[in-house]
């Protein structure tokens, strides 16, 4: 009994000893105090305010079948076309903006909490405790406002440029503001070139603002406030020099920037890495010709070295940016590689924007096909996360994808790029809505053109419509790939997609789709066939509706009518089935044919005439044949004979002899008579309608214009 007890005791002692051993030589145990029970809680890890939220957010994966978070409030309103997505998001934000406007216009309504004692009202506004800056009315600065230096600091800190300028003037302008504040203010206006930046509050507005590519032109305001402040400063600090040079260089006032940097060097003013970086970007504005430019670039780098200024990643990016802006060619490309090697030597790796400029430099539209992307991807895949370092970083993925799609035409590379973008937090590097849609346009295009059918379909199913809505050109690619893949079911669904995406009025796409359907329908299952017929009939209905609307409402751009070829395609599709709806659609289409532009497909129409006659729809057959004859198709004759033979249930020879005879009036029923007339019209070859010839010639012109 005793011995039994003793052994566990020994064991626990042994365990305790072992534990102490590990704590001595192994990892540092968190708790200094060793508790006898062996439980040692881990040390406290200090967490930031959003750490928990970030961990939680990381557990939410993306669901391609669901609409984006910002759209899902009301399932009925979930937008599916690009236009509607944009207006939905912007409307939601417009509401917030309106609220903010009311708040800013009437700050007196937001000054106090009701439960605050009157004595607590020590400030004019918002004495809520804690004070929440984001909810507080924005201060409005005008000529009457009494401002202090604090206001200037506030406006500079929040990048409220116009307000800052106002406050600066109210404070007494260049003469009365102290040097330190003046310097801060100078940096602000140099950074933005006296232009108000976008507010950081309206996230959707920024997301959807079509990023107009920054003009590479001298936009620096000469003799503006920045210049005045700089002249007024005495002594001129290195900071002042640096801000002004950087500002000028940023807005491409290259010569002044360069001259100022010379002046600074003469006065022994220490410059900075960033100043040199901005000067490197400007070389192209100073020198002409590749050789001179490269010389100047190397000179600047050497000068940096002499001044004892350490280069950074930005230096590398600036060099490559300059090189890529100077065109292409072997010399520049070799130079770029040398620069990269040089910086790698001193331990500086290129960042995303450097890679972006590299791609720009090597993958020219008409240049030789150079695969530099796979090397870059290998480098990037090694990294755990891609930290944005430069605003140009957001151009990397879209450029990489466009290189995949247009330059290298390689689906595997495209998939690697996409995988990289989807990794971790990298998606934020996609830029804005505009860049995102271009990115996906390239991805889908390359998939349509160069990926196996199944892979393409998988990709399309994930992306469309919640992540990406294809533009008309991409839609055309998709229709093409569906046609080549013979996917009849998807083709029939494409029509509803066109409607949902707002492309249904694009005649070109619809006609393309009809062509594709015609090409595929013959080998589809019966079920699919009927689906295709349904969507073809629906197209016809849709366009009739649109036409009615056109008549009632005058719009700026009236929708075109379906052309005769499109109509004959619809006839072709519908005539594969037996349903009454299809034949109604055929009837409609045949009626429409007369007023449609262009000429229909004679083979289809003559076949449908015969089939209609077989089904006893003589009137339909007659109108189809009349159309053929009026257009002057030679098929009209044979088709009329065939149709008549079906109608009258005689052999073709009999019909032909009968047609030789002259007096048929009264012997035949009305529709058969119409067929006979069509036959005669076709035989005599006199087109009843002059319209055809004149219109066809104008059509030919227009089509050749399109070429």
């Amino acid at each position, binding site marked *: 009994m005793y011995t039994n007890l003793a052994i566990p005791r020994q064991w626990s002692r042994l365990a305790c000893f072992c534990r102490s051993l590990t704590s001595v030589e192994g990892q540092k145990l968190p708790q200094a105090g060793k508790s006898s029970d062996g439980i040692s809680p881990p040390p406290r890890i200090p967490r930031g305010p959003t750490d928990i939220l970030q961990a939680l957010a990381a557990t939410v994966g993306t669901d391609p079948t669901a609409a984006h978070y*910002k759209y899902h409030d009301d399932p009925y309103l979930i937008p599916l076309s690009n236009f509607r997505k944009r207006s939905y998001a912007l409307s939601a934000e417009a509401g917030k903006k309106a609220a903010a406007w009311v708040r800013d216009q009437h700050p007196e309504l937001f000054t106090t909490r009701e439960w605050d004692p009157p004595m607590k009202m020590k400030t004019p506004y918002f004495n809520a405790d804690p004070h929440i800056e984001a909810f507080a009315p924005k201060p409005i600065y005008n000529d009457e406002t009494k401002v202090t230096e604090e206001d200037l600091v506030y406006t500079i800190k929040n990048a409220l440029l116009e307000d800052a300028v106002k406050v600066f003037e109210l404070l007494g302008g260049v003469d009365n503001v102290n040097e330190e504040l003046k310097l801060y203010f100078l*940096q602000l206006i140099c950074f933005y070139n006296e232009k108000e930046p976008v507010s950081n509050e309206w996230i959707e507005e920024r997301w959807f603002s079509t990023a107009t590519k920054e003009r590479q032109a001298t936009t620096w305001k000469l003799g503006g406030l920045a210049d005045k402040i700089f002249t007024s400063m005495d002594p001129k600090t290195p900071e002042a020099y640096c801000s002004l040079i950087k500002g000028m260089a940023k807005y491409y006032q290259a010569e002044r920037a360069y001259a100022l940097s010379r002046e600074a060097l003469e006065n022994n003013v220490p410059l900075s890495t960033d100043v040199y970086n901005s000067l490197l970007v400007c070389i192209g504005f100073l020198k002409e010709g590749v050789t001179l430019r490269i010389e100047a670039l190397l000179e600047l780098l050497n000068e940096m070295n002499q001044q004892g200024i350490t280069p950074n990643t930005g230096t590398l990016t600036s060099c490559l940016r300059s090189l890529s802006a100077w065109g292409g060619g072997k010399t520049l490309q070799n130079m770029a590689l040398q620069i990269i090697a040089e910086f790698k030597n001193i331990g500086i790796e290129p960042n995303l924007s450097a890679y972006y400029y590299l791609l720009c430099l090597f993958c020219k539209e008409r240049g030789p096909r150079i*695969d530099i992307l796979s090397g870059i991807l290998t480098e990037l895949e090694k990294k755990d996360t891609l930290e944005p370092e430069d605003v140009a970083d957001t151009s990397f993925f879209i450029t990489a994808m466009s290189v995949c799609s247009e330059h*290298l035409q390689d689906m595997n590379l495209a998939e690697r790029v996409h995988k990289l973008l989807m990794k971790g937090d990298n998606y934020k590097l996609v830029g804005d809505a505009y860049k995102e849609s271009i990115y996906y346009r390239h991805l889908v295009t390359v998939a349509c053109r160069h990926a196996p059918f199944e892979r393409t379909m998988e990709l399309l199913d994930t992306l469309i419509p919640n992540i990406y809505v294809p533009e008309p050109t991409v839609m055309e690619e998709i229709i093409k790939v569906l046609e080549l893949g013979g996917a009849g079911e998807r083709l029939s669904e494409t029509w509803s997609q066109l409607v949902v995406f707002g492309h249904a009025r694009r005649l070109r796409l619809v*006609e393309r789709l009809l062509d594709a359907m015609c090409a595929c329908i*013959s*080998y589809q299952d019966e079920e699919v066939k009927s689906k295709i017929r349904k969507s073809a009939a629906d197209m016809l209905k849709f366009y009739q509706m649109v036409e009615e609307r056109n008549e009632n409402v005058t719009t700026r751009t009236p929708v075109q009518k379906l052309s005769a070829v499109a109509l004959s395609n619809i006839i072709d599709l519908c005539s594969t089935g037996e349903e009454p709806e299809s034949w109604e659609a055929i009837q409609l289409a045949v009626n429409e044919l007369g007023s449609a532009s262009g*000429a229909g497909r004679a083979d289809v129409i003559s076949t449908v005439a015969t089939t209609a006659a077989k089904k006893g729809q003589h009137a339909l057959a007659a109108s189809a044949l009349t159309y053929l004859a009026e257009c002057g198709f030679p098929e009209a004759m044979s088709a009329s004979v065939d149709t008549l033979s079906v109608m009258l249930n005689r052999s073709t020879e009999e019909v032909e002899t009968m047609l030789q005879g002259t007096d048929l009036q009264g012997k035949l029923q009305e529709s058969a008579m119409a067929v006979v007339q069509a036959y005669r019209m076709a035989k005599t070859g006199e087109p009843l309608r002059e319209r055809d010839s004149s219109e066809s010639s104008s059509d030919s012109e227009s089509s050749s214009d399109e070429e």
Partner: protein
Amino acid sequence: MLSRLRIRQDFKYFMRCLSDKVPEHDAGIPEIKTKNAKDQKKSSDATDKIQSLLKSMMAEPKISDSEYRERFTTAPERRKKQKADEEVKIEKIEESITKAAEDVAQALGGNVKQTEAELLSRVLGKINQTSTTLSDLIVGMKVDRSKDREDPAQWENRGQQVKRLVEKSKSDNIRYNQRKSTNQRDSQQTRPNRNLPQISTVNIFSGEPLGIFQKEGPVNHGTKLEVWEELDKRELLLATSQPPANYFQKMILWTEQGKVWKFPINNEQGMEEEQNVHFSEHIFLDSHLDGWCPTKGPIRHFMELVCVGLSKNAFYTVKEKKDHIMWYKEYFESKKDILQDIGVWDTKPQTSEAST
């Protein structure tokens, strides 16, 4: 019956093409070729006939070049040399492949046409059997064979070319698009033998260093611009921020904007002013009475009540509470004379200190 009808139609097409009477209505060039091709499968004598017709059609346009130039604006002359023999070659390829496929299909039995179409599509990576796409197939074969097939206009003779331009609306579009698509597909299919030599891989780290900078040395980034750096960060953040994709991200955004409580939740968040003040200073306010307040009497009583009230006030800071008390101090001191007259102002600092 049906096939015969079709042949007849095709002849008509053909006749129309040749006669050039109604070139506007001509929508059928792709169909001609391919329907012909289809018929080949069926009857071999028809094949021969159509073959010869095709050749004659392809080889010589009915209108001479000069005539064309007079009537239409023509595209500048393009490579014309290899055309003839290529055409023959193409026809041969088409013929042989179709024949081979046909043989296999016959051998297999069953739905001969279906099998054959499948075989052909397998060969060329397409499934289409219909007319337009079979022409597509032929085009694809062409490109496979000859290396420099960039230009769609290259494999049609001038007559077709002009007709294509004149052709009405859509048939034109089809052909154009198909050609485009075939080009693309071709570039994919034939990449191994056509494009590989063109793509040159560049190793980004293959360059020779310039040798300007030294690895070691003091790090010196020069003059620092604080505001500029802040603004840079702001712009970068704006460029990479996106609308929140779920509620947690929205919460993160709001937290960063300072609109919601920060985690971990703390009731005194945002009350930085009072953060380092001990609670006792809020509650035990009697000490502020020391030195001026009478130790007993109505004023003392009143002031103690004031202290109790203030100690329960959650909204005042300690400084405000102190100021509040001091206000009374000043008030009473200003009335000192009267108070002393009625005997309620009886401060004895010494004794009060002794008592505390």
